[in-house]
């Protein structure tokens, strides 16, 4: 029940879905549709796992008065306060939407943008042409960086054309091969999973 049961469920659900898609008969069509629906319901109802984990980690820190427990306490108060506000007031609730638009959004946008400064620092200290490969990467990056902004065409119309060419041909070729390799890799992994050979994702060896 602990090991073979989940593997059996994986194999049955996977094979059933594949058969229903391949056979594509009116009799089998509802099978795939039902499995799709069940998948959506399972995903839609396991979302509280994240909130419970957050509560567990932060609650433990508060109870133990760990360093910085005050921040963990703020997190828990805001988390449950915001959930209650949303559940009681509904999604038309002005306060619920104001908090999202005017508190969360600026913080999220700014956190996302701080990386710009790290990139600037890294550009000076780490992005170096130590060998031929790194030099090629660096030249391509510089051409695209200048060619994809208005300054590129102001310097020379050739720069944006070079940037476009890099993106449209060598980059497409490289990324396409990565995509194709990943597709094959994904299919092999899926085959291993569905035949019960790959079990590590469930905590098995």
């Amino acid at each position, binding site marked *: 029940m602990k090991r073979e049961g989940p593997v059996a469920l994986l194999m049955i659900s996977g094979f059933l879905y594949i058969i229903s898609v391949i056979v594509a008969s009116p009799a089998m069509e509802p099978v795939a549709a039902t499995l799709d629906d069940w998948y*959506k319901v399972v*995903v839609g109802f396991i979302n509280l796992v994240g909130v419970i984990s957050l509560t567990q980690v932060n609650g433990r820190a508060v109870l133990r008065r760990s360093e910085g427990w005050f921040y963990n306490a703020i997190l828990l108060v805001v988390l449950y306060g915001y959930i209650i506000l949303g559940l009681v007031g509904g999604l038309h609730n002005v306060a619920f939407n104001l908090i999202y638009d005017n508190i969360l959004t600026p913080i999220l946008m700014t956190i996302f943008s701080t990386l710009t400064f790290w990139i600037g620092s890294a550009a*000076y*200290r*780490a992005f170096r042409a130590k060998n031929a490969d790194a030099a090629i990467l660096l030249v391509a990056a510089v051409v695209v960086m*200048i060619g994809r902004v*208005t300054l590129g*065409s102001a310097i020379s119309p050739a720069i944006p054309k070079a940037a476009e060419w890099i993106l*449209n041909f060598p980059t497409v070729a490289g990324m396409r091969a990565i995509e194709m390799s990943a597709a094959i890799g994904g299919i092999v992994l899926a085959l291993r999973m569905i035949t019960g050979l790959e079990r590590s994702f469930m905590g098995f060896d």
Partner: protein
Amino acid sequence: MTIFEKLDSLDRRWVFAFQALVFCIVILKPVGLALTVGDQVRTAYETIDSLPAGSIVWFGTDYQAANAAELEPAALAILKHCFQKNLRVIGASTWPEGGAMMARLLNQVTPDFPDKEYGVDFLNLGYRPGGQVWLQQLTDDLPAAVGGVDHFGDPISEYPIMDGLNKIQDVALIVGIHVGTPGTPEYIRVITDPHNVPMITVLPAVSVAVTMPYLASGQLVSIVASLRGGAEYELISGFSGTAMTGMDSQSFMNLTIVIFVILGNIGFFYNKYKKGASGGGGANV
């Protein structure tokens, strides 16, 4: 100690401060570099422009607030263009925050189009779980997949915009505003490729290189990329917004980073030459 060694040991916060200063200068003193509309944005514009009035455009808002700064200008310009052309717009998302993102877009655009009515001309279906599986359901039975409510949890059965919309194949165009998974590849796998539904995708710059193969293979109509794509769409559509005013600043910030790269490499080769030794790249970023 050479100047380059001194720069190497400089506290990174000075570099941060310098970048912030450049941002301030270029925003406050723009030089007005000319912006031209590229082929991708032109294709996107012409595709939307050629749709007959009343067609349904599906906005897949699969992103979150962190990406709004980069993607919203393009999304807003496209949405305004759709309303101007009297296209009907339905927004939906596989990301929990996507419904709120669509609401943000609509809140900014609808005041300019007071005649547009919710449920008639536009609708925000909000979030549904399941990712790619939900997208597959949209191709089989859209009303069942949607489940009868909109982003606010209100019933949608009375809304005329849903009349005759049985599958996602019935929409004229998909505008996918995507940043990750589920995103463009998932739409391609289950909707656009098997059912030949045209899709324009609005992407952050970081996703462009990895999405280019789908464009080259004809699985996408066009990519409207990042703030630059937004600025170009604002220019071609005539709906001026925040993106166009930022293009100078973007140019000079990119130039600053290129100068950092060049200076770093001059220092690297100078130190290497001076010490006569190899290696020595800095990890202290």
